[in-house]
């Protein structure tokens, strides 16, 4: 606090005299207070407080600035980076306010920057943003003060050094730092170049410093040196931009900076447009698709901005071509061209030329003091920018006549070979269909594009000419400098010559590295060799070798060796021509094995470049390596050999275009297959396209017995590979291997082990690739289950014994796995056939828990062919002795005896409807297209009869009806003839089967032409006293009802009491029958017994007199009534099921997919009565109204 009050004192003393004390006191007091508080605050609060102080001392009361400067600067040692950043910002503001302060502060700034260096990133992020401004103020101040003190000089040096530091940050690792460095470069270039009349000057920067404000005769700052610096900064920026791995952000920043430069310093227009052109033709390949579109968008935006600038007139054609390529409409482009452009043409030349001169001919500037005056055009313009510009132009002109359709076609064909497999994102984004192909303009454009590329690659006549010109220009420059120098003061001479010398180097160097980074490398490489290879000559002495030669240094030695070997490597063609290539191969192989280091890799790479042509070299190298290994035995390691083999194999593997032949040859002829090589082989085999290569492993197994199990293991591993093609090929070869006795055990064990995995509750990690880190708890999937079984299943048809293992695993596995297993065994089981003794044994033993498996096997076996007697025998045994599950019988049902089938029927028809359907299909022979119905133990008729005869205590009526419906569904099998026979036989039975009449009616519905036969049946039933079987009787009446008037004659055969019963059931029958009788001839009428007539006429009499019916209450009437009651009783008591019930039948129709409905509906309709007395009445009422129609029951 003591220091605080002291400060207050100083402040008040200082200002007391000059300003209003009261106000000032409060401001300075406030500042003091804030500063004091800030010292003890947390970082965030501190920043707030410091910002307040800044506001107070810079904006509110600048006079306080000087006073509190030290206190503020003291915070630069704060721990927090944020606070230090703030101090930099404060320095910037302070310097803007008063540039004199810079002298004091520059050292602090530098110190800040230095102490930041561990956080270089932060330095740049804040420092870069600030420094240009500091620079500006510094320069303003330097410019104004004419006298230069040592202090100022030192300060200037420091700034220069800082500038260098920041520029170096263009190569920083940090993307953001680079971005800021670019912006800094932009500001630097603008400051270090002269403002011209056509420069666009932002209003806020009106007063900013630029080169033109610096007096040429300033004692310390040299105009030309600064211009040079600006120029080299631009070069650095351009160089940075063509870096192939430039990030999208940096690129967009650089694009923006260039646009700003072009607008503010039009003399750079040429470079900028050129840079845009180059960029557009060579978008960095590292950009992603969206980044490409972002960059293109930016490019478009900035191009338009540049286009709007009047100085771009000369470049309009280039810019509009670029914009067209970027997808901008011609009209839009035209709109962006400034209308005043033509009138500005003359002034435009002037800055352009001046720019040139500033850059390239610093000596000439001296006598061209007045910038406003249009400069005389200098005849030879040896400028580097002009050189590049025209290099493209010259090359384009050179190319233009060469672009004949034929040449172009050839070029396209040749370049096809070099196209990448995948379309690069940049191409995809930039491709626009060529609209004006073949026109003059387009050819010109193409020539220009090619010229850009060629120049960038350092090729073409234009470039050579320019180079030549550059050199001439430089000589001329040197002379000019010399002439100039004579009249100028000595300091300038020194400076200038140094500059022009540096320029000569920097122009060529920068130029080369900017456009063609590769060329200098290629050209420089051989150079250092020459002097070292030259012997020291020209000494006159007695020749003594020891004197002349000196031991070479190790590195030199190595270099020479390398080069020697390289020469032998490269001389391939020359030696081939001389016919001594075998010597070269041998030599190389021997040499290679003697040297360690990168040479081997070089050679392997060389071999892989053209493995087909250089395979002899590959083999001899391989054998040589192996030889080396054998020589060193037993201590020698295989590493070198292994490395050689591994590199060759994986090199081959990585080449998609490589055919398998060479790989195979290499593997089979290699003296030894190492573990890593085996890995490569494995990877190679895993490639779907080349899975045929798997046969290599089988070859290896057979031909290299010492390690055959290793190879076999690879093959076996592949057998459960997820790619189908790989797997199936592997399986084919395994099957072949399986035939070899000595391998059989191993394969079998492997397969069983794999299958054994299914017992685990979760798939073991073994099943997943090595790299995949799967959680232990992942459940089995179809895929993983299959993976365990592929090998096993393919072995199964070869060795039937294995089937028992499957059964054992199956019983232990979880349900999901069981399901998968059942799905996959079809093929192999079918392959085994039903005669396989092992399969029969499996059926016979049928382990507990494997019933479903056995059933599935049986189904598979009998799916297409009838079961063999052997199989039937086993199943029968199994069924009778061990597992009395009727489902076992289904597959072999056609192999069973008739008696057995009939016995099993009640159980069979109770099964799931789909299964029942299958059973019937089998029995009726409707399942197979071959139609082996002759195989069935039962004829269709017999089956239907058997169904009727099922004891209703063994099976409920519902299932029986469903089963008969299934029969009726097979119209092809149950023809009218078959049904007639069935009815005939059923009718003859005693007692009558309950479903008889149902079948009769259903047959009639299906085949109306059976009507006569049915009448016959009905008459015969009367003889059998059908009314004694209530159910049948009911049906009988229904049947009569449906078949009237045909049935009238039948009805008349009934005894009177039964006829009365009929009328009781359906009274509406009486009247028509009466009519029918009345239509008889009197003679015929005489045959009708009077009792019948009485019943027929009873109703009309009843209407006449009421008491009659009571009188009519005969014994027979009663009998009928009783029988109805009995009927009901039967319904309720014995079946609990009403065979006539509609809903049931409907249910069934829904359950079975067989299209039975059509045939059924009328029948069901006929049987809808007797469900209950009430319903019966209803039914009767309806019947009297109309003949039942299909669908009427739906309303019920």
């Amino acid at each position, binding site marked *: 606090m003591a220091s605080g009050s002291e400060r207050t004192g100083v402040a008040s003393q200082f200002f007391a005299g000059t300003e209003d004390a009261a106000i000032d006191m409060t401001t300075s007091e406030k500042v003091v207070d804030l500063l004091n508080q800030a010292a003890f605050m947390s970082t*965030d609060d501190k920043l707030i407080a410091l910002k307040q102080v800044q506001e107070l001392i810079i904006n509110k009361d600048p006079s306080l600035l000087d006073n509190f400067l030290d206190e503020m600067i003291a915070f630069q040692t704060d721990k927090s980076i944020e606070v230090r950043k703030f101090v930099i910002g404060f320095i910037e503001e302070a310097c803007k306010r008063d540039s004199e302060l810079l002298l004091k502060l520059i050292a602090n700034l530098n110190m800040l920057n230095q102490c930041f260096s561990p956080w270089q990133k932060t330095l740049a992020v804040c420092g870069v943003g600030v420094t240009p401004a500091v620079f500006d103020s510094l320069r303003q101040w330097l410019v104004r003060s004419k006298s230069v003190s040592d202090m100022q000089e030192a300060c200037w040096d420091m700034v220069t050094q800082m500038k260098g530091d920041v520029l170096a940050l263009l190569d920083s690792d940090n*993307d*953001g730092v680079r*971005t*800021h460095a670019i912006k800094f470069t932009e500001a630097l270039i603008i400051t270090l170049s002269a403002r011209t009349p056509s420069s666009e000057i932002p209003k806020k920067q009106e007063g900013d410093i630029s080169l033109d404000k610096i007096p040429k005769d300033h004692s310390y700052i040299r105009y030309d040196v600064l211009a040079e610096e600006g120029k080299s900064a631009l070069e650095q920026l351009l160089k940075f931009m063509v870096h192939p791995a430039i990030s999208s952000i940096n690129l*967009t920043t650089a694009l923006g900076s260039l646009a700003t430069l072009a607008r503010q310093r039009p003399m750079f227009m040429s470079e900028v447009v050129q840079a845009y052109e180059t960029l557009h033709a060579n978008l960095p390949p590292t950009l992603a698709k*969206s980044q490409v579109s972002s960059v293109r968008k930016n490019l478009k935006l900035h191009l338009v901005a540049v286009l709007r600038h009047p100085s771009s007139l000369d470049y309009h054609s280039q810019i509009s071509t670029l914009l067209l390529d970027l997808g901008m409409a011609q009209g839009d482009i035209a709109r962006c061209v400034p209308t005043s452009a033509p009138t500005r043409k003359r002034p435009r030349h002037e800055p352009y030329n001046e720019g040139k001169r500033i850059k390239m001919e610093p000596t000439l500037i001296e006598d061209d003091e007045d910038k406003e005056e249009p400069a005389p055009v200098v005849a030879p313009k040896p400028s580097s920018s002009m050189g590049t510009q025209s290099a493209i132009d010259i090359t384009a002109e050179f190319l233009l006549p060469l672009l004949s359709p034929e040449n172009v076609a050839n070029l396209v064909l040749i370049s096809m070979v070099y196209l990448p497999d995948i379309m690069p994102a940049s191409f995809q984004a930039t491709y626009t269909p060529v609209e004006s192909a073949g026109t003059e303009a387009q050819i010109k454009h193409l020539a220009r594009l090619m010229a850009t590329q060629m120049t960038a690659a350092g090729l073409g006549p234009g470039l050579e000419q320019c180079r030549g010109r550059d050199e001439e220009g430089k000589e001329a420059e040197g002379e000019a400098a010399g002439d100039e120098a004579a009249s100028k003061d000595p300091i300038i001479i020194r400076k200038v010559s140094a500059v022009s010398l540096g320029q000569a180097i920097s122009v060529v160097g920068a130029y080369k590295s900017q456009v063609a980074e590769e060329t200098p490398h290629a050209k420089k490489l051989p150079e250092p060799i020459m002097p070292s290879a030259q012997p020291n000559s020209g000494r006159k002495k007695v020749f003594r070798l020891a004197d002349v030669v000196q031991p070479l240094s190790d590195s030199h030695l190595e270099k020479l060796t390398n080069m020697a070997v390289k020469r032998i490597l490269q001389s391939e063609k020359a030696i081939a021509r001389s016919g001594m290539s075998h010597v070269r191969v041998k030599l190389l192989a021997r040499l290679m094995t003697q040297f360690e280091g990168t040479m081997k890799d070089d050679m392997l790479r060389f071999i892989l470049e053209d493995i087909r042509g250089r395979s002899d070299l590959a083999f001899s190298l391989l054998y040589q390596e192996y030889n080396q290994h054998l020589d060193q035995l037993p201590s020698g390691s295989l590493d070198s050999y292994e490395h050689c083999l591994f590199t060759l194999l994986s090199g081959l593997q990585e080449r998609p275009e490589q055919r398998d032949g060479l790989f195979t040859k290499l593997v089979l002829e290699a003296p030894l297959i190492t573990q890593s090589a085996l890995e490569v082989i494995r990877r190679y085999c895993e490639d779907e396209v080349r899975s045929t290569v798997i046969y290599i492993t089988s070859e290896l197994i057979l031909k290299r017995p010492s390690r055959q199990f290793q190879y076999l293991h690879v093959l076996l591993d592949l057998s459960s590979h997820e790619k189908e093609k790989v797997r199936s090929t592997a399986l084919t070869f395994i099957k072949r291997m399986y035939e070899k006795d000595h391998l059989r055990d191993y394969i079998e064990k492997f397969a069983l082990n794999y299958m054994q995995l299914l017992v685990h509750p979760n798939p073991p990690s073994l099943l997943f690739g090595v790299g995949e880190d799967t959680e232990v708890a992942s459940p089995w999937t179809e895929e993983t289950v299959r993976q365990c079984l592929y090998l096993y299943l393919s072995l199964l048809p070869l060795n039937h014994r294995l089937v028992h293992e499957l059964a054992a695993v199956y019983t232990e596995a979880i349900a999901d796995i069981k399901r998968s297993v059942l799905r996959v065994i079809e093929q192999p089981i079918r392959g085994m056939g039903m005669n396989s003794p092992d399969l029969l044994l499996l059926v016979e033993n049928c382990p507990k828990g494997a019933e479903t498996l056995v059933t599935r096997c049986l189904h598979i076996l009998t799916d297409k062919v009838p079961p063999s007697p052997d199989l039937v025998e086993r199943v029968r045994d199994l069924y009778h002795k061990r597992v009395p599950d009727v489902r076992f019988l289904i597959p072999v049902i056609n192999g069973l005896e008739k008696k057995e089938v009939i016995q099993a029927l009640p159980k069979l028809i109770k099964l799931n409807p789909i299964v029942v359907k299958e059973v019937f299909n089998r029995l009726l022979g409707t399942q197979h297209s071959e139609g082996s119905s002759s195989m069935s133990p039962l004829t269709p008729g017999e089956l239907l009869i058997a169904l009727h005869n099922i004891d209703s205590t063994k099976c409920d009526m519902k299932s029986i009806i469903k089963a008969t419906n299934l029969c009726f569904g097979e119209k092809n099998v149950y023809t009218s003839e078959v049904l007639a026979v069935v009815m005939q036989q059923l009718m003859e039975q005693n007692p009558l089967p309950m479903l008889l009449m149902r079948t009769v009616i259903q047959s009639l519905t299906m085949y109306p032409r059976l009507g006569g036969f049915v009448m016959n049946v009905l008459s015969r039933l009367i003889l059998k006293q059908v009314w004694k079987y209530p159910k049948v009787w009911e049906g009988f009446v229904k049947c009569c009802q449906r078949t009237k008037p045909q049935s009238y004659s039948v009805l008349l055969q009934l005894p009177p009491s039964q006829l009365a019963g009929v009328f009781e059931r359906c009274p509406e029958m009486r009247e028509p029958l009466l009519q029918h009788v009345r239509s008889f001839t009197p003679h015929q009428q005489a045959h009708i017994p009077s009792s019948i007539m009485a019943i027929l006429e009873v109703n009309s009499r009843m209407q006449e007199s009421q008491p009659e019916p009571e009188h009519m209450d005969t014994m027979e009437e009663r009998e009928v009534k009783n029988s109805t009651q009995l009927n009901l009783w039967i319904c309720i008591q014995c079946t609990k099921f009403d065979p006539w019930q509609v809903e049931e039948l409907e249910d069934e129709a829904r359950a079975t997919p067989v299209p039975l409905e059509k045939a059924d509906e009328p029948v069901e309709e006929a049987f809808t009565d007797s469900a209950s007395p009430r319903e019966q009445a209803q039914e009767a009422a309806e019947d009297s109204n109309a003949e039942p129609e299909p669908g009427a029951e739906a309303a019920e």
Partner: protein
Amino acid sequence: MPSHPLRVAVVCSSNQNRSMEAHNILSKRGFDVRSFGTGTHVKLPGPAPDKPNVYDFKTTYEQMYSDLVRKDKELYTQNGILHMLERNKRIKTRPERFQSCKDQFDLVITCEERVYDQVLEELNSREQETYQPVHVINVDIQDNHEEATLGAFLICELCQCIQHTDDMENEIDELLQEFEEKSSRPFLHTVCFY
């Protein structure tokens, strides 16, 4: 991690649906967020596609609301416009035009390519003063309520990721690439300077 919360601007065409939805969500997540439109007018769907309701940027959401209630309450209730305006007026009083705002941001997120272009044009036409970078990212969002909600969440996630970077300038490029892959939509991205 930057010490201050990101200053985010969300920009769409009319500053009604997409930008406001994002504004809503981002401000709930504690971002220093503002929203803008780049259009010359504020347009809201009208009774037919060719008859939009057009307002200028001075009209408050409240005024639009009462105007639409007066015109056809049922229609605008049913197509959700009233609901949207209700939400908007809880956030701020009136739509703002991006071109009229001279404040600085760290991050500008646009909702369609046209808007992105307009923002870039605006930012580039301003005179450079501070060399303060601003990242402009375009996230394509269709102009309907559902897409706006989905888009807002995407934007929010993006902002959170950017907020959590140690060094935004350095990592944003990679971050966007990852994000592009994750959301399988392309982002246009560039950096401008104030």
